[in-house]
């Protein structure tokens, strides 16, 4: 391959997948670095699982090429690709014991009986479930089954670990715990992992790289901070967290900041500048968590720009945080999320909003 780099373990070039006339994946290029954890993030039907299944070989690609360790694998059948896959429903063989489940992949790899025993024991210790060898999958809890699935996949020392929404079948608390465990295990073993999820928190907390997808198209690729703080379009911003969006027009530059006029006529300052022309129509995006909300009487120290009066229209108390919907003078409603404070605001309170120019992102009009 012309553009092969040594540390790229999985590469997709112009991969297209069509089911009859429906396009599931469109012109996908992907480079996955050895040892990294890459997340394919998107709503259901965005093609993320299809990509994973194509890499695994469970699905053919309609067009394009897939390379694993620099070798084109389009025509290599699943069982010869040396990949570990974790399924949403774990897919532990119900008729086999845990030992036989974990040992399954080793049987096809010329490993001696004694070595199999050693490696299975070690894998079960790695997932912190030693001593369950003789049980059947049905005798284990969901979280334990997930760990066995993990042990079964890593025991064969795969080139890449593929995980298809592995945590979505678990309940909230267990999911958090397993997420950390998978994350720790991945960095401990240094195993290249491709993780498919629709859960933004999973993606943000675990990934080295996030690939946000929609309708079979890659929307953005980057580190968690990058896709969260600098989304390239409306969809990415909206999918990752709670945002306020306003139609706006560039009006000029002042004090090193870009000035925009939003729909209601207000002028806002933004640190974001990509050399737009004056008059260009864009969309202003502000994350709900970045908005500072204070009572009308208090001064916000050291701040002179982007300060607006408003009135709390409704409030939702969420325990650790509070959501406020604040109505501005021009009638637009701003969604602000604040860490819960001692004296929270109530409906009807007069407040002052500060929108830091640093957090005013400008993105193409949707």
């Amino acid at each position, binding site marked *: 391959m012309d553009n092969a780099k040594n540390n790229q373990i999985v590469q997709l070039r112009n991969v297209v997948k069509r089911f009859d006339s429906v396009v599931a994946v469109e012109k996908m290029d992907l480079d996955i670095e050895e040892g990294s954890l890459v997340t394919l993030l998107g709503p259901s039907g965005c093609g993320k699982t299809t990509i994973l299944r194509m890499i695994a070989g469970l699905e053919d690609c309609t067009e394009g090429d897939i390379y694993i360790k620099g070798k084109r694998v389009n025509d290599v*059948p*699943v069982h010869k690709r040396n990949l570990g896959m974790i*399924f949403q429903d774990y897919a*532990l063989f119900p*008729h086999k014991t845990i030992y036989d489940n974990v040992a399954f992949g080793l049987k096809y790899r010329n490993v001696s009986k004694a070595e199999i025993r050693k490696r299975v024991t070690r894998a079960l210790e790695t997932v912190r479930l030693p001593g369950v060898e003789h049980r059947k999958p049905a005798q284990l809890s969901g979280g334990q089954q997930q760990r066995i699935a993990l042990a079964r996949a890593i025991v*064969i020392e795969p080139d890449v670990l593929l995980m298809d929404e592995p945590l979505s079948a678990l309940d909230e608390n267990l999911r958090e715990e397993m997420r950390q465990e998978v994350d720790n295990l991945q960095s401990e073993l240094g195993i290249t992992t491709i993780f498919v999820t629709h859960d933004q928190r999973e993606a943000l907390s675990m990934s080295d790289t996030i690939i946000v997808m929609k309708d079979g198209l890659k929307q953005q690729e980057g580190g968690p901070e990058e896709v969260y703080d600098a989304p390239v379009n409306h969809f990415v911003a909206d999918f990752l967290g709670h945002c306020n969006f306003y139609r706006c027009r560039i009006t000029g530059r002042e004090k090193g900041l870009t000035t925009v006029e939003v729909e209601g006529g207000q002028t806002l300052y933004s640190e974001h500048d990509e050399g737009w022309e004056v008059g260009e129509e864009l969309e202003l995006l502000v994350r709900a968590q970045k908005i500072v909300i204070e009572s009308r009487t208090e001064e916000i120290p050291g701040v002179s720009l982007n300060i607006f009066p408003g009135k709390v229209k409704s409030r939702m108390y969420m325990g650790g945080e509070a959501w406020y919907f604040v109505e501005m003078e021009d009638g637009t409603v701003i969604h602000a999320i604040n860490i819960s404070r001692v004296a929270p605001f109530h409906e009807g309170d007069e407040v002052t909003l500060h929108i830091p120019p640093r957090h005013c992102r400008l993105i193409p009009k949707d």
Partner: protein
Amino acid sequence: MLKIKGWSLIRFYTILVYIWMFAPIAVVIILSFNPQQFGTFPMEGFSFKWYGDLFHNRTIIMAFKNSMILGSLTAILTTAIGIPAAMAFIRYEFPGKNTLNTLLLAPIMIPEVVLGVSLLLFLRWLQQPKSFLLLLIGHCVLTLPYVLLVVQARLVSIKRSYEEASLTLGAGPFQTFKEVTLPLLTPAIMAGMLFSFSISFDDVTATLFWATAQSQTVPVKIFAMLRNNISPEINALGAVMIVLTISIPLLAGYLARRFSRRLE
């Protein structure tokens, strides 16, 4: 009070239905121990006479052997055909799939008389004599739909991800079938074989057309015996068949349970 009255009515009705269903069977079994030629109640004595006669009747023993061999071969053949066919229908896409599936299930809908005659005519057209092979083919046609239905239903419930997991772990398609799909299918295969055997063992209508003097089955033999005279031997034969057809599934169920318990 009214509620209790309603329930006792239902209980009474249920008991009546059971009596209506099982009384004839019970009569057959009881009369088979009656030493008299013509059974009347109360019975005068108790004997195994008719069972003794039965075991010395060479033609009946022959028919019994035929039925057993035919039933077993039918069960083995239909599962051997039915498993790959069910795999194809459930796991793969190919043109004409639905039509073919309907065609394979058609023998259930077609009257057995038609099936019996048509296979016979087909054989005539091929200019082949009637034989045991014809009987075997016929019984396979009769029982294949049941095996297919049972195996397909089970296959639908076996998640595709088991097989996919096996493939990703390095097992080839054949090894995956052997190690994962087949063991998970076993209950359905057992049920299919049992169905197949008992339908074959039991069939009269179509078998009447296909059987030769050498390849008579038990039901056909009983039918022939009834035409000549009503011998109490038939009661004994009936009793043996009842015991067999009830005990085989029970035994199979028991073995299956013991087998699965040992696996755990």
